[in-house]
């Protein structure tokens, strides 16, 4: 079994966003990075799947060489090796170019089972998992909250707006991980030590041109200053008046 978790580095959740001088990109000065929240679930599910079905877990990322920091963290949690498709323009690479390059590499690797995050918390696209599955011709279930695997096939439950949907599929398959799927484990000291000896390979990226062209990047318009209507339940009539006659939302 070849199991792969695709992870992406994203700015820390607390990052104060600033627009760069070009007016089109994020000012990266002082920005620190982490593995995207949902990709931690992807790594955990990959390791769990290996524990159940056997095989080998590779962590795959398109990013700068320094993304080895995030890869080591994943290796410390039980993955076997890492691969970086080195991309100097990683932060602006669009979802098509990203998905195609990942799919090409996954095909070469002969991946049976691929885990992605539901969404990367930088551009909030929620696109690369189902896109790369389509390029691979693999089955794909998105937003998965429960997964049952057996030899060569599985059943995945996905959280949809109207309820929970179950899908049956065969390998090769791509699963995008939603919050309730698992609780990512902590890397113990032993894991951290072991990770130092695990291989991380850097490969050149052959990416196609972007189709998404940024025109401008702006801070969102500030909301007009609101007001405190009053204190306690006695303020309810004033609130109703504001909603009915001022904001006219009821």
């Amino acid at each position, binding site marked *: 079994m070849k199991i792969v978790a695709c992870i992406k580095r994203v*700015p820390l959740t*607390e990052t104060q*966003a600033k627009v760069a001088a070009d007016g089109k990109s994020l000012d990266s000065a002082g920005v620190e990075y982490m593995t995207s929240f949902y990709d931690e679930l992807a790594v955990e599910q990959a390791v769990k799947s290996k524990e159940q079905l056997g095989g080998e877990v590779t962590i795959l990322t398109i990013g700068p060489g320094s993304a080895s920091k995030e890869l080591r963290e994943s290796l410390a949690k039980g993955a076997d090796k890492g691969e970086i498709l080195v991309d100097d323009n990683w932060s602006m690479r669009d979802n098509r170019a990203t998905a195609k390059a990942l799919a090409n590499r996954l095909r070469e690797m002969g991946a049976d089972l691929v885990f992605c995050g539901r969404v990367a918390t930088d551009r909030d696209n929620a696109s690369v998992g189902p896109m790369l599955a389509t390029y691979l011709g693999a089955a794909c279930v998105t937003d998965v909250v429960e997964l049952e695997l057996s030899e060569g096939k599985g059943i995945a439950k996905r959280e949809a707006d109207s309820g929970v949907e179950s899908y049956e599929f065969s390998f090769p398959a791509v699963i995008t991980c939603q919050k309730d799927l698992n609780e990512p484990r902590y890397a113990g000291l032993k894991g951290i030590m072991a990770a130092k000896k695990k291989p991380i390979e850097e490969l050149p990226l052959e990416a196609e041109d972007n189709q998404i062209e940024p025109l401008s990047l702006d801070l969102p318009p500030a909301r007009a200053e609101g007001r*405190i209507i009053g204190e306690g339940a006695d303020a309810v009539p004033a609130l109703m008046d504001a909603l009915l006659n001022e904001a006219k939302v009821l």
Partner: protein
Amino acid sequence: MSIAIVLIEHEAGTVRSASLEALGAAQAAGCEVVAVATGSDAANTTAALGEHGAAKVVVLGGDKYSPDGLAGDLAKIVREQGAKAFLATASSTGRDIAPRVAAELDCALFSDCTAFEADGDSFKLVRPWLAGKLIASLKSNAPVTCATLRRNTFAPKATGGSAEVMQVDSSTDFRAVLSKIEAKAEGMLDVAEAPIVVSGGRGMKEAEHFSLIENLARAFGNAAVGASRAVVDAGWRPHAEQVGQTGKTVAPQLYIAVGISGAIQHLAGMKTSKVIVAINKDADAPIFKIADFGIVGDAFEILPRLTEAVLEARAKV
């Protein structure tokens, strides 16, 4: 006039408001609209779709649902119609299907857009980045512009027209197949779709106290219950109700935050709501900084009174 294919979502033949918004968005961008409806009762959507500006409706037959199968069918329709755009709503279904359609067409995907405009031969789109901390204006250089549209953001357009209807068989070549649906409690609106959202946070103290939130939502008649991550993590409410960076993005007409402090990750999911009301006993809670109207005080006192007032106001209309 360029053609836009719009994926329609419906509930037993009643078209979801978000899909009517998508039809409106396509027309506002100067497109002729071909709507595609699938599933049982899909044929019942055609009149409403025509009345909202669809020139043509493709009804996809078939008794099995497969996201990869549907995406393949949609890509085929895009090619056959020579469409320049493919639009879906940024719902759980739209966000599942649209990336696959984009990849089938070898095109990039624009997710969760808040604006969609014609730009010469192509399109310009606007969408939030970094959980809404930045707003990106983007030009599409894709042969077909594929996008999902944020709900409650675009205006539907009632044209009173009627659509030409085409019946097409869906493919039967599936990689993943839907085998079961555990539907949500009936009559509950999804938090990302409802025009009014009443959300509770840790200030509600216990899961049982959410009955106060539910009562207020019910009093409005068209509201959904939302939750902060703190209460979802505590197991008081399901994750499907979570609003925020790791939950859903909502943009209702009215968002009422009760006992929610207003952490940046929560704001990321609701700050584009039209009107925001905050109820919190701490006058310094950050939620008051983005609220249009605030009441400082105890939710347990305020909620019953507010529920009563809403019922009274609705009885008058």
